[in-house]
């Protein structure tokens, strides 16, 4: 925690800000990319959202109060940016974000930046059948291996509710995988 306080101070100090921000970029670009990509599914969209996320992080550093971990705060910005992006894309296409995700997954095999096998494709398909919040919880727990406590800070949901959500998600996925 003390290290994080020092790092935050470096991010806020104009003299050390640039170097500190480059360190932030190096450390978080991959995990944040993976998180965003799991939501928006398409690489080019994930690239756009990731860049917007880091710009927003940079612009709002002065507003960061330290009430949560820096990592949780950044993940929250990334999650909001990705969901907003999906919603806007869905609106442009006169559809819902769930339907949009389902359509994108149906076309995954044609996506040059998806090299999953049959079981990976089936799992992605099974996830699209879950409610939006359950999808997010499942992806963050299963693919990104985040701790429930960290997920609770990012999503603003209790650990208990997250565990229940994940449990239901797993059951529905297993039903789909066994039926297909």
């Amino acid at each position, binding site marked *: 925690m003390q290290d994080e306080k020092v790092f935050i101070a470096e991010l806020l100090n104009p003299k050390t800000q640039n170097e500190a921000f480059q360190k932030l970029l190096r450390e978080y670009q991959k995990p944040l990319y993976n998180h965003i*990509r799991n939501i928006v599914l398409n690489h080019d969209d994930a690239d756009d959202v990731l860049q917007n996320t880091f710009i927003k992080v940079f612009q709002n550093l002065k507003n960061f109060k330290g009430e949560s971990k820096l990592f949780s705060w950044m993940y929250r910005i990334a999650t909001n940016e990705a969901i907003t992006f999906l919603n806007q894309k869905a609106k442009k296409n006169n559809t819902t974000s769930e339907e949009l995700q389902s359509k994108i997954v149906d076309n995954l095999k044609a996506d040059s930046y998806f090299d999953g096998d049959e079981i*990976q494709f089936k799992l992605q398909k099974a996830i699209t059948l879950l409610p939006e919040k359950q999808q997010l919880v499942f992806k963050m727990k299963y693919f990104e291996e985040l701790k429930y406590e960290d997920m609770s800070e990012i999503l603003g949901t209790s650990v208990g509710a997250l565990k229940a959500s994940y449990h239901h998600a797993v059951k529905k996925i297993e039903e789909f995988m*066994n039926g297909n």
Partner: protein
Amino acid sequence: MKEFRLDNEPKIASGFKTPEGYFEDLSEKINKNLPNSEPKVISIFQKRKTWMYGIAAVLAISISVVFYQQFQSTETLDAEFLENYIARNTTVSEYDLLELLEKEDIEKIQIDLEIQDDILEETMIHNTNLEHYLTN
């Protein structure tokens, strides 16, 4: 057929991949778009704003000058207006005024009034109380 249990299966990856060298170039792309690195652009709307503030200031000064002049002019009362106002609203008669004035002052007020004959004749025709004029 073996039942699929997620916990029993080897970890299934998402299947997503990135273009070659994507993360190597990413920092540079982001740094280019950060607020500090953008060249300062003076928006045309900002210039227009400055003009609007200037026009508003000129208008405000003009209106203030007009109001000030009006205020000034109301301090100088028209003499004739003032005289008529006093005449209409006073309870002091000419006789009261005469009593207050000295003989010298009364003589100074004396006005040479040239009355034309036809007007005098007209007055006498329409005035039935001639006796008053003949005896006083």
